[in-house]
């Protein structure tokens, strides 16, 4: 009986050997797109993939005479899987560039692979400041949390908000946003009355919001992953915090364009700061939103999508300059790119390889029956204040 088990194992091992033999073609430019397609961050993966494919559809699948091949892989949100997939993409599929990375730990885990194999890595979604410092081959087209919350802190001070309670989800971007918001806000003379952290798995905001109520601040600053935002706002209203005169200001992910329409009236009037709103008033953006919706069943693009869209642009333009070569040349061609994105003007800082763009303060409004983040203020050329400069 055990003999048959052994035979089965041998067959299985042999199968492994025969799998995944992609015929390496020299005429292709390969992009390895690693996304969380399953698990709690699957909606991020969906937006990223849709935007990347949209860019390819709009700009053709040939660059510098080579055919572009987009290899999409699911990393289920586990960093060791991301790293292994990245390694396999580099070694077996011989990709010229790695892209995607929905979460910070995934980017961090893969950084050594980029450095060792000299493959440029484009971060399209993750938002922690220090990611670009993990490897000289990392370029970012998403945003950093400090960029946006600093602007929000300034806006708050200007608008008579003196006391604030911060409520963030207890994971890296949340903690980052709490730190940088508090820093800036306090430097401006404001007072952070209390800092609350909600566990990532937590189903219920009730006790935390009760604490906020008891602390009686002028405003509540919050950051929660997109999805939890609507629950938070509903409970905010349910607990009567808006009637108690507490304003809600948030990092832009809370009013994520993807789900904004479903949030209902509780979201109206919420002020946020972010680098992209689907309501941005530019012809390029209008075209982007329309094309995205058409290709994806009416789905509205959010900030993740624009990160992927711009990431593809950076890759394409870089490849054009290097005539399809990868490695250090491609990295250099990515640095310093200046262009117009659906979010507004943007450039990739040649020094830090990080993204520099406008940050907008927005308010949620209902226009023609749909909810939008209307931009009410703009801070131009916002660099990442999180870098140790």
């Amino acid at each position, binding site marked *: 009986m055990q003999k048959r088990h052994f035979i089965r194992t041998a067959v299985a091992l042999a199968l492994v050997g025969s799998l995944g033999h992609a015929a390496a073609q020299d005429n292709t430019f390969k992009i390895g797109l690693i996304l969380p397609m399953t698990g*709690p961050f*699957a909606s991020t993966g969906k937006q990223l993939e849709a935007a990347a494919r949209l860019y390819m559809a709009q700009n053709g699948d040939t660059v510098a005479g080579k055919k572009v091949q987009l290899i999409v892989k699911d990393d289920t949100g586990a960093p060791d899987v991301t790293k292994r997939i990245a390694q396999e993409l580099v070694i077996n599929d011989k990709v010229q560039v790695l892209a995607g990375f929905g979460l910070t730990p995934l980017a961090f885990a893969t950084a050594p692979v980029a450095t060792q194999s000299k493959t440029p890595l484009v971060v399209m979604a993750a938002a922690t400041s220090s990611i670009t410092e993990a490897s000289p081959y990392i370029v970012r087209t998403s945003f950093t949390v400090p960029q946006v919350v600093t602007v929000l802190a300034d806006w708050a001070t200007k608008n008579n908000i003196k006391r604030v309670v911060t409520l963030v989800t207890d994971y890296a971007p949340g903690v980052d946003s709490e730190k940088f918001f508090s820093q800036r806000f306090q430097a401006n003379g404001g007072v952070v009355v209390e800092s609350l952290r909600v566990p990532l798995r937590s189903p*219920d905001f009730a*006790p935390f919001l*009760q604490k906020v109520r008891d602390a009686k601040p002028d405003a509540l600053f919050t950051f929660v992953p997109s999805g939890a935002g609507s629950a938070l706002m509903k409970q905010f209203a349910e607990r009567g915090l808006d009637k108690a005169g507490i304003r809600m200001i948030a990092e832009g992910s809370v009013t994520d364009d*993807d789900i904004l329409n*479903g949030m209902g009236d509780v979201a109206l009037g919420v002020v946020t700061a972010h680098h992209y709103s689907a309501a941005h008033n530019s012809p390029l953006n209008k075209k982007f939103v329309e094309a995205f919706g058409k290709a994806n069943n009416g789905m509205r693009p959010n900030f993740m999508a624009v990160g992927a869209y711009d990431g593809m642009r950076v890759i394409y333009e870089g490849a054009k300059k290097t005539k399809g070569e990868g490695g250090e040349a491609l990295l250099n061609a990515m640095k310093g790119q200046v262009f117009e994105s659906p979010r507004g003007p943007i450039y990739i800082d040649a020094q830090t390889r990080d993204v520099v763009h406008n940050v907008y303060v927005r308010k949620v409004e209902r226009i023609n029956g749909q909810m939008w983040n209307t931009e009410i203020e703009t801070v131009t050329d916002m660099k990442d204040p999180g870098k140790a400069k």
Partner: protein
Amino acid sequence: MLTILFDGIAYGMLLFILAVGLSVTMGLMNFINLAHGAFAMLGGYLTVALMQHAGLPFLVCLPLAFGVTALVGAVLERTLYRPMYKKPHLDQVLFSIGLTFMAVAATDYFMGSQQQIIQLPTWLLGRTELFDGALGMGHYRLFIIAICAALTVGLQFILSRTRFGSRLRASVDDPRVAASLGINVNVVFAATFAVGSGLAGLGGALGAEVLGLDPSFPLKFLVYFLIVVAVGGTSSITGPLLAALLLGIADVAGKYYIPKLGGFIVYTLMIAILIWRPHGLFSRLGGGK
């Protein structure tokens, strides 16, 4: 502080409704059904779909959530679950996890992976403040408590005062003897499973507002259901009720008073209780695996 107590009770009662079906199934059929969360998810999504696409009012969706889920439960019990009763626990765990995976992936495919948002009727939004604000009661939570309390009373009544209840209790105590007395144990099983699943569906519908609803709901909350069942024991419904209330209040109060430790409190409490009373806080001591 009273408000925290109130919130904890609301949360606990919701957990109870969600978990009571699991507890009874385990006690009755000795079946570890980890797919219980999937039934809850079904009820939640059904409610959302009916409200958004068919425009049905919330109150109508609730009994529908119960009914449809109960029906699905009955069908599945007859077809898939029945052959599994005699199998070892490990097999049951695998089976129910497999079902859960399928349910999660299917929901993701058909409904998308984002959070579902329910629009409650306006009379449920709102808040009553008593004692100068020391006790604030959200109307929706009051509603939850009311419904769950009514259900609990109803369940207890059925269990202790009706024929079906006595048959159920007999089957829990000893299925073979019950069968030999002429009780149709299969029917009892089927009905109980259906009702338990239906309650889970109702809980999912009620909880969508408070707990959120997305395809990973069954896996996220499975732990909480299991805690209620493990601590509350499987031989009564007051056991899980008290366990759920304890869990709800501990969780909410813990997060309020010691936010740094938030999630810990619940798990440590559970482990401590289980070490002290391995068969659950309220079960009668005695045999059973």
